[in-house]
């Protein structure tokens, strides 16, 4: 079976595959940054003393955490063009889907991070005359973020893997590009082995980095 394992097909299509990888990485990075930003705002809303605000944020989080990601991707793929009134293309619809979906998870991580900052630190900021917003920005969030770096990175690795679900709406990420090559060249074994290896190496490197960071933070 492995006798005719042809690595040439990979190199012949390297450019095409790299374009797919580029889309995967762009999607991952934008989803992390957007999700983190929206998630942090949601976390602040969830911890708000105003019941209406915290209820809305809580509902958002619970809603998205109860949805399969694949459904969210489908839903945005078909709904976003309806909402903005024109076709937006698969890439932008999955971008929105990932940012909104990830925000729910980042919200919960940031909420735990904010709550991990000692009450005394908040008192100290207040006692110096910082407003609520200043206290969050300069005192609480930097510490919350630091405390959560390992978990945020673990979530980023999961997200990197999850981006392969854009397969269902035909956005040409790394996996879809490899699939196209595999079918065109009839080299299914070679391509999917390569895809598996690439995902494995990237995710394993990420996990090892998380472990090192955890050791460093534990000191």
């Amino acid at each position, binding site marked *: 079976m492995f006798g005719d394992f042809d690595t040439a097909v990979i190199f012949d299509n390297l450019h095409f595959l790299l374009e797919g990888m580029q889309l995967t990485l762009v999607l991952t990075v934008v989803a992390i940054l957007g999700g983190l930003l929206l998630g942090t705002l949601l976390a602040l809303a969830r911890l708000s003393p105003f019941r209406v605000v915290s209820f809305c944020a809580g509902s958002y989080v619970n809603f998205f955490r109860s949805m399969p990601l694949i459904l969210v991707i489908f839903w945005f793929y078909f709904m976003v063009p309806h909402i903005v009134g024109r076709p937006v293309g698969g890439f932008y619809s999955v971008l929105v889907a990932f940012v909104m979906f990830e925000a729910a998870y980042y919200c919960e991580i940031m909420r735990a991070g904010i709550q991990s900052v*000692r009450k*005394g630190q908040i*008192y100290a900021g207040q*006692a*110096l*005359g910082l407003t609520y917003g*200043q206290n969050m920005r300069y005192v609480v969030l930097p510490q919350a973020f630091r405390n959560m770096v390992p978990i945020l990175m673990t979530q980023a690795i999961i997200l990197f893997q999850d981006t392969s679900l854009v397969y269902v709406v035909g956005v040409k990420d790394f996996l879809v590009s490899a699939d196209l090559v595999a079918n065109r060249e009839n080299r299914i074994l070679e391509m999917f082995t390569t895809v598996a290896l690439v995902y494995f190496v990237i995710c394993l490197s990420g996990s090892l980095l998380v472990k090192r960071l955890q050791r460093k933070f534990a000191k």
Partner: protein
Amino acid sequence: MIELKNVSKWYDDFQVLDNCSTQVEKGEVVVVCGPSGSGKSTLIKCVNGLEPFQKGEVFVDTISVGDKETDLPKLRASIGMVFQNFELFPHISVAENIKLAQLKVLGRNEDEASKNALRLLERVGLADQADKHPAQLSGGQQQRVAIARALAMDPIAMLFDEPTSALDPEMINEVLDVMVELAKDGMTMMVVTHEMGFARRVANRVIFMDEGRIEEDCTKEEFFNTTRGERAQIFLSKILEH
């Protein structure tokens, strides 16, 4: 300068402050003592509104702390506070700790804030530690930085919440020395502490609290020399025994 009128506070059904009234005049040093759980820390946190209270009034320089219209951040910026666990910000350097509120609250420029930070670090004897992070300093050094951070706001009064309780014995004096100097410079101070030596040296008045009530509120001389209530006597005999 600071006036508390019939302040009461509850955590749910549990009353932590019971009808507390006292005042601190400009330049006065008032020591608040009492057994743990007597409400001392809560009382001092009511002065700058860190703890809300349900009944009574607190005035700082005629501004009502409990009034919803009061700009609390602005009021707090004018009162320095030092905490039991120092509460320096661990993610920024010592100098940045002292600069942060000067820049963001008082709107001073970088140059002015830096000069001020260095001058205050010199005053507490830590000028060479400016670029270190708080975790690299000993407890006593951290507390001196915390005092410098509070002084950087040019406060009209200083609140100390058990400033030496978390310190190893050999570091207590370096912090008390800074506080004694502050008192001698005429700073208005309200100090929650068990350090009766400090009280004897610089306090004008001593307040004794028990079960949320102010049981004694008298001059230092009266407190240490004349007969007091039974509870205060028991408390003093316990902490002065050794």
